[in-house]
């Protein structure tokens, strides 16, 4: 080839390449076969490619220069003799199509070329060996052989469906995948999520159309969509969305109905409201005097199932309202309650006689719970408040006190209002100071004087009767109104115990805060019988303790109130039952002194109504108790 011819040829090839890359069909494999003939260089081509349907195309072409022609003498695909090129089909620009072929293989074509060189008789053949005759045409031949091959890989997996496509944090299970080209011919199929929140592995037995994946969701997995991807030798699938929902509340106890005591007080039925598709709230209302104010509700989302909604609701009720005897089962379109009914009334909005698991992964259409129930103590719906206060009217001053004492501690009490600059007030206050410092002062060392001083100090440091109703919150804020305050609202999870104050018996606006050092001042627990209680225990402050010791020789007993609910949600009243084996207190619920007024505040209300009053015992009985007597929680029966 002359230099000018050669440059022209290279230019053609460059243009052809650009066409291949940017405009023509994608050619996956191209063979360039270079031949030198008679001092001229010729390049011929064979290409092989495929389409998305695994059809294979073999094309040949060569230089377009007139003087040259390229023929494909033969063509065969290794291992596929039916696709051999037959005689007479060779030629430049010939295209051969066959397929579709099975994926996952490498296909090779062997191409034998015949290169014929024509010239027009101007000097014969290039080597001068051929006579071109009169027509001036002659030709020369060469027969190179080329190979071209193509891999037809296995296509990447195509996911058409996964089930389930959601679960909750911390859950594990099996995802069933349907699709095409899942596991390739070499047995390769991998699965993974694009984040680390969910681990997944392919179970044995996968095919090209089905696969089971074991998954485990981290308890801290992000709520929302996660991308599941399958991979085989052909590449990755398009991701499928798997949704993680928040974990439901813990399920109810497996067998909460084991309690054999009477479980049902005031409860008559549970009526759940229906749920709608999508998102919403499921509410449950109770009937019965002790339950009517309870309206628990749970929200659900598009991926919630009736089972999960109802289970959540059941757990909520168990946790907050029902302590014993709960047997809550979820039921939805395919779930029917089948629980025990021996201990209480069951009202079930669903019907049926069997219990099956809801397998639907679609949005909830209905859900509910059915159970029999015994109210948790909190479910009594009342906030119980016990106010310990000294009833001054109930204290009678004993007779026989000395004149020196009665002139200091006036039998009628300090004038009201007391004159702060008066001798009466000053003598009284100085006497109180002396008692607090351990001195008897004007109290002679006689039983009569001591009894009088005891009674007088308590009578005139008395509290006002809390009255027919109290607001527990505001009442508690003023410690001069009580000696001890105990408030227990289990349904709200709140309890408080406060030591009150001792108003100045001499009539000034001063009051001395009580001793708050008892570990049982604000103490909640479960009794030996398994009942819930809140204990408050306190006593007069340090000056009062010193004064009591000065007059009585011993440490003043503690006072306490115990609010306790039995399994039926009833306030426990042990009366005068002694604790066994702890026999120190004569009463478990209350110390024998002072007066205890009990109030109940309905759920949601702010004002408590008077329920009952335990009158105070005598001061002499209180003074004869063991020094520093206390109620030890471990002794509460």
């Amino acid at each position, binding site marked *: 080839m002359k230099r000018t011819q050669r440059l022209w040829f290279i230019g053609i090839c460059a243009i052809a390449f650009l066409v291949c890359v940017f405009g023509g069909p994608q050619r996956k494999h191209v063979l360039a076969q270079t031949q030198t003939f008679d001092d001229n260089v010729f390049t011929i081509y064979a290409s092989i490619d495929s389409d998305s349907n695994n059809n294979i195309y073999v094309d040949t072409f060569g230089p377009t220069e007139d003087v040259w022609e390229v023929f494909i003498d033969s063509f065969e695909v290794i291992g596929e003799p039916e696709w051999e090129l037959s005689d007479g089909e060779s030629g430049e620009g010939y295209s051969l199509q066959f397929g579709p072929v099975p994926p996952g293989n490498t296909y090779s074509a062997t191409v034998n070329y015949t290169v014929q060189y024509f010239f027009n008789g101007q000097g014969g053949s290039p080597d001068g060996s051929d006579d071109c005759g009169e027509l001036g045409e002659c030709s020369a031949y060469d027969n190179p052989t080329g190979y071209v091959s193509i891999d037809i890989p296995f296509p990447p997996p195509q996911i058409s469906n996964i089930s389930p496509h959601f679960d909750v944090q911390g859950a594990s299970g099996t995802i069933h995948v349907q699709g095409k080209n899942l596991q390739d011919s070499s047995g390769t199929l991998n699965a993974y999520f694009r984040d680390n929140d969910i681990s997944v592995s392919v179970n044995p037995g996968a095919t090209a159309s089905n696969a089971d994946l074991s998954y485990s969701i981290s308890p801290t997995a992000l709520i929302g969509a996660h991308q599941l991807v399958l991979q085989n030798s052909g590449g990755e699938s398009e991701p499928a969305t798997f949704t993680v929902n928040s974990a439901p509340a813990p399920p109810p106890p497996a067998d909460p109905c084991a309690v054999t005591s009477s479980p049902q007080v005031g409860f008559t039925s549970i009526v759940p409201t229906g749920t709608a598709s999508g998102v919403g709230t499921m509410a449950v209302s109770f009937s019965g005097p002790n339950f009517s104010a309870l309206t628990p509700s749970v929200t659900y989302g598009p991926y919630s199932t009736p089972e999960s909604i109802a289970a959540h609701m059941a757990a909520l009720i168990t946790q907050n309202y029902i302590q014993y005897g709960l047997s809550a089962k979820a039921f939805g379109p395919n779930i029917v309650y089948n629980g025990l009914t021996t201990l209480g009334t069951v009202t079930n909005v669903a019907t049926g006689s069997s219990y099956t698991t809801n397998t639907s992964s679609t949005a909830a259409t209905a859900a509910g719970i059915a159970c029999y129930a015994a109210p948790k103590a909190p479910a009594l719906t009342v906030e119980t408040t016990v106010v310990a206060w000294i009833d001054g009217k109930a204290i009678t001053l004993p007779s026989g006190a000395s004149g020196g004492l009665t002139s200091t501690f006036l039998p009628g009490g300090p004038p009201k209002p007391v004159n702060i*600059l008066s001798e009466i007030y000053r003598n009284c206050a100085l006497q109180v100071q002396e008692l607090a410092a351990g001195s008897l002062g004007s109290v002679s060392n006689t039983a009569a004087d001591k009894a009088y001083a005891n009674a007088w100090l308590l009578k005139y440091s008395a509290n006002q009767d809390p009255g027919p109703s109290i607001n527990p919150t505001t009442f508690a804020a003023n410690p001069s109104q009580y000696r001890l305050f105990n408030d227990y609202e289990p349904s709200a999870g709140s309890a408080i115990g406060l030591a009150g104050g001792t108003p100045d018996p001499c009539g000034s606006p001063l009051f001395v805060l009580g001793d708050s050092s008892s570990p049982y001042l604000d103490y909640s627990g479960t009794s030996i019988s398994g009942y819930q209680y809140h204990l408050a225990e306190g006593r007069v402050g340090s000056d009062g303790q010193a004064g009591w010791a000065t007059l009585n020789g011993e440490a003043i007993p503690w006072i306490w109130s115990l609010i306790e609910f039995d399994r039926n949600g009833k306030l426990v009243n042990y009366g005068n039952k002694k604790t066994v084996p702890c026999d120190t207190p004569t009463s478990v619920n209350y110390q024998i002194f002072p007066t205890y007024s009990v109030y109940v505040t309905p759920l949601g209300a702010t004002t408590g109504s008077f329920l009952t009053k335990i009158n105070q015992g005598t001061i002499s009985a209180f003074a004869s108790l063991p020094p520093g007597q206390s109620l030890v929680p471990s002794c509460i029966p």
Partner: protein
Amino acid sequence: LRLALVLVLLPCATYGQAVQRQSDEVVNSIAKVKSGDFNVANIEVIAKARAVEAVPALEEQFRRATDVRTKAKIANGLVRLGDKDDIYWNYLLLQATLAVDSDLPDAFSDSNGNAMNQAFSPELIAWAKAHNVTVNAAGLLAVNDLPIKVMLLGQTGDPRAVPLLRRALQSHNSFIVLNAAMGLAQIQDKDSIPLLIDTSRRLPPGLATVVARSLVYFDDPQAQSAVDTYMPKEKATMAREERARGRGVFGW
């Protein structure tokens, strides 16, 4: 005759039982102090009984005590029992000095001496606010805690307390003044009689009566004259009768 014998013997038996009870009370108090489970009343019982055998136990409890009132009461008891270790006296004196020198105002009287009967004085309210305590807590400090420190010092009857108690008569806290007057009477510091009379003169009548009651315990014409001046007649008579029956200014 038999009846007369019973009438004669009965008081004797009663007295004997009382003595026995007191003895038991002292023994019990000493045991409690030794055990560490005691109260201020136990110390008072020991001090009154002059049970010096309790001194080592009281000294030990003084060393252990962390509560100021208890510690001061132990020191009070030890001084009254004649313990010569200055540590106890110094503790009492220190506490009383802190009380006398305190800037805590009177709880119920304003700076002009006007009473705030059912309310606290404005000065006390301001003091409580400045010291970030409740007014009630400040009031208890003024009415109980600080005056009791002065009381415990004066109850000892120790003449070393005279200078501080005289100064305490000038306190703006009326309860400290009253306890100082009682302390000077307990010490029988006759040189303080003019001061006590002057204190009665400047105080409101009710408070003057209380101070004047301290003068009942001085066998001194000037003091007794002041008693008649500042105490109502029947109260002065009653106070003198109590003294005649053996009651001290602090009751013993």
